[in-house]
């Protein structure tokens, strides 16, 4: 007995009447005749071993809900995890706009039928440009790791030098991405040298920097604020050292710090890059990252961007805004032969979201959010640092994150974090593997979403955990 064929709601022509009519139209009696170009032995004749389908919408929702329900979330739990993906306040309008179907489901249409998309992405670049105090951005990249990696390659193309200097304190996540990206066949295309840092302040060891800087150095890269949370207070001097050697000075920054912290451009950065995740995006299990690169208005830099740029122009209709593609060839000015890169689908929807966020926040909002983060962070560090056996690793000022050392408590971070779960708290990221020199240390992330009571709860819980 034949089963009744399933009509799938997302496959309209699976309706038997239509399907039969269309098959007749194209002259086949069996669907497999559509595939007559594929040799028989290359056809897959078995049934794929996939689970039985869940056909109706209610049941698939229920099923998925049950799986996702196994996750503990950062609403139920108080989270102090950051390390490149911090929990921030997301205005409702951000979700409203990135849920708009037109944006959600558009792709690569031209600037007439997709005028709104072009304008929104132009505005993303424009708003980010104000934050960075720089004129040039392209449409976004995969994440901060990609932005850092491409910045290093841009520097290499600009000055044709083969060595980059990075702080040993940098994000291991980004370092690994960059390491693969700067690798090449047959030999490493660009050598990465890690510069040491002071374990009491976190600041870069300038003597080590001076020892390694030379006319072979393509770029000096720093993070500010850094992965480990401290503010690199010598940034200006590092920039000077880089410039004097003819190297690019690349600063990886946290855009949400820039209402209170100086834009890297104003302390010497020639390339600013980072991840715009803090600007209106949820945690999304890591799925809401997005990279950016900004530079000054100089053809030397503009021509080295790997991704598309949308330029504001006029249209044939007087008084109408239009958009064109800027330097599509890019290489008419550049030096592509010093290392090509590719472009592709990245994170457009998140960039539009960041544009909404910055439009809502305005200059006041950015200043306020930066201030709140500084205050909450200092409060938390102060209180945690007062706990017995607990030490705040760095004496330097920090933004949003700081390293907490638990060595003297006799407890490992893993143990502490396990216990914290009982308090419905996600403790800071365990650094004991990434930075063994800090022993049992964790990276705590404090933002504007943490209220006084949250911070006190953390301190209370930590106290309980370390004394038990």
């Amino acid at each position, binding site marked *: 007995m034949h089963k009744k064929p399933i009509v799938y709601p997302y496959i309209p022509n699976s309706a038997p009447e239509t399907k039969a009519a269309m098959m007749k139209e194209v002259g086949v009696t069996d669907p497999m005749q559509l595939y007559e170009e594929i040799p028989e032995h290359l056809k897959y004749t078995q049934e794929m071993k996939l689970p039985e389908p869940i056909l109706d919408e209610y049941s698939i929702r229920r099923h998925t809900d049950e799986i996702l329900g196994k996750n503990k979330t950062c609403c139920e739990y108080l989270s102090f995890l950051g390390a490149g993906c911090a929990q921030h306040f997301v205005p409702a309008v951000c979700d409203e706009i990135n849920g708009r179907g037109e944006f959600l489901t558009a792709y*690569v249409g*031209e600037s007439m039928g997709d005028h709104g998309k072009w304008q929104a992405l132009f505005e993303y670049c424009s708003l980010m440009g104000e934050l960075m105090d720089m004129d040039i951005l392209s449409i976004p990249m995969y994440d901060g790791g990609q932005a850092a990696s491409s910045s290093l390659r841009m520097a290499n193309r600009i000055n044709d030098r083969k060595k980059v200097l990075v702080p040993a304190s940098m994000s291991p996540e980004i370092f690994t991405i960059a390491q693969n990206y700067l690798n090449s066949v047959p030999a490493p295309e660009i050598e990465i040298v890690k510069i040491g840092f002071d374990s009491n302040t976190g600041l870069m060891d300038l003597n080590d920097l001076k020892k390694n800087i030379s006319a072979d150095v393509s770029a000096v890269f720093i993070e500010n604020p850094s992965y480990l949370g401290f503010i690199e207070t010598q940034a200006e001097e590092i920039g000077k050292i880089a410039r004097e050697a003819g190297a690019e000075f690349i600063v990886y920054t946290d855009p949400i710090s820039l209402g209170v912290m100086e834009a890297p451009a104003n302390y010497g950065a020639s390339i600013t890059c980072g991840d715009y995740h803090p600007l209106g995006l949820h945690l999304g299990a890591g799925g809401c990252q997005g990279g950016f690169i900004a530079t000054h208005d100089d053809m030397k830099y503009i021509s080295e961007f790997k991704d*598309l740029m949308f330029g504001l122009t006029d249209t044939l209709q007087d008084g109408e805004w239009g958009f*064109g*593609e800027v330097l*599509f*060839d*890019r*290489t*008419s000015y*550049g030096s*592509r*032969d010093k290392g*090509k890169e*590719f*472009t*592709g689908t990245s994170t457009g929807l998140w960039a539009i979201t960041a544009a909404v966020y910055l439009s809502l926040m305005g200059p006041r909002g950015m200043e306020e959010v930066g201030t709140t983060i500084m205050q909450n962070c200092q409060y938390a560090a102060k209180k945690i640092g007062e706990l017995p056996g607990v030490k705040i690793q760095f004496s330097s000022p920090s933004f949003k994150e700081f390293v907490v050392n638990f060595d003297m408590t006799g407890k490992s971070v893993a143990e502490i974090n396990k216990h914290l779960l009982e308090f419905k708290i996600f403790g800071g990221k365990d650094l004991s593997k990434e930075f063994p020199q800090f022993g049992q240390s964790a990276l705590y992330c404090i933002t504007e979403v943490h209220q006084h009571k949250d911070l006190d709860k953390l301190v209370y819980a930590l106290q309980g955990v370390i004394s038990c």
Partner: protein
Amino acid sequence: MKKLGVIVNPVAGMGGRVGLKGSDGIEILRRAREMGAEPESPRRAIEALKIIAKLKNEIEVLAYPDEMGADECSQAGLEPEVIGSIKSGETSPEDTMEAAREMAQKGVDLILFAGGDGTARNIYTAIGAKIPVLGIPAGVKIHSAVYAINPRSAGEVASLYLQGQVVNIREAEVMDIDEEAFRQGRVNARLYGYLKVPVERRVQSVKSGARSEQAEMEGMAAEVAANMEKDTLYIIGPGTTTRTIMERLELPNTLLGVDVVFNRELVANDVGEKQLFNLLEQHKGKAHIVVTAIGGQGHVFGRGNQQISPRVIRLVGKNNIIVVASREKLVALQPHPLLVDTGDPDLDQELSGYVRVVTGWEDSIMYRISNDAD
């Protein structure tokens, strides 16, 4: 207001219809007329000019008298300012040259001409690459690359150019063959020079990920230069494509001739066959030949670079030939192969097969090369 100059070679294309190869030379023309040949070029010129006539109120048009342009313009609905003088019915290459000169003097922005290889060559001789020109293909022999693919396209591209719209300027080869030899079944084409030609520019879509031809050629030059071996002669063939390599090396270059490089230094400019062979012998044949596809039919050897003779090629060896060309050029050739016509059939046979054409930085295309133009 933009100014357009129109020149029609009224006898171009006459030979073809009656099986004569080309129509250069008064005698041939007479024979062609006797055999009942009709001029091809006026009809084709009108087809192109009709498209331009839509811009009638936005441009000024200059034309040579009667059948050399004025007639065609009027029939297409244009009202040209007629300059110069000719003897109707007995026009000559000198008239074409004079027309080009006068138009250049009057400051036209573009010369649109109808003709064949001879016409292009006349214009090149008269004014060089001073102003952009565009050919309406009407001749029997089209080896030059200065022509639009058809009359309509010539009209379209000229219109875009005159309206200041997206158009690129490309240097295109002016080639011509010895017509007498051609009629006797031998092809002996020369590269005479380059004219500036407007080409339609495509705004590339966001997905395409392509690069401009110019940029790719700079990458190609960098690639060839980066892979140059020490203590090896490099024989650089003629053309604008190979010129980019000499520019990359910052060496003086002979556009229409063969240059020789050794350890990134110039050995000699514009060498003849004998000198080339002697140099090779001195270096015990340790050499590479760098050539590009010349002309509309994609000749790698045998057109415009006869200095690189069969014995030179043999001494260097097949594996030491580097072919360079742009992707655009190869795509335009499709599905025809690159051609070799060294004058030595055995060698041509040996060279046939597949060749790796360097098309950019670390970028190449496998392309068919043949001794037979399909």
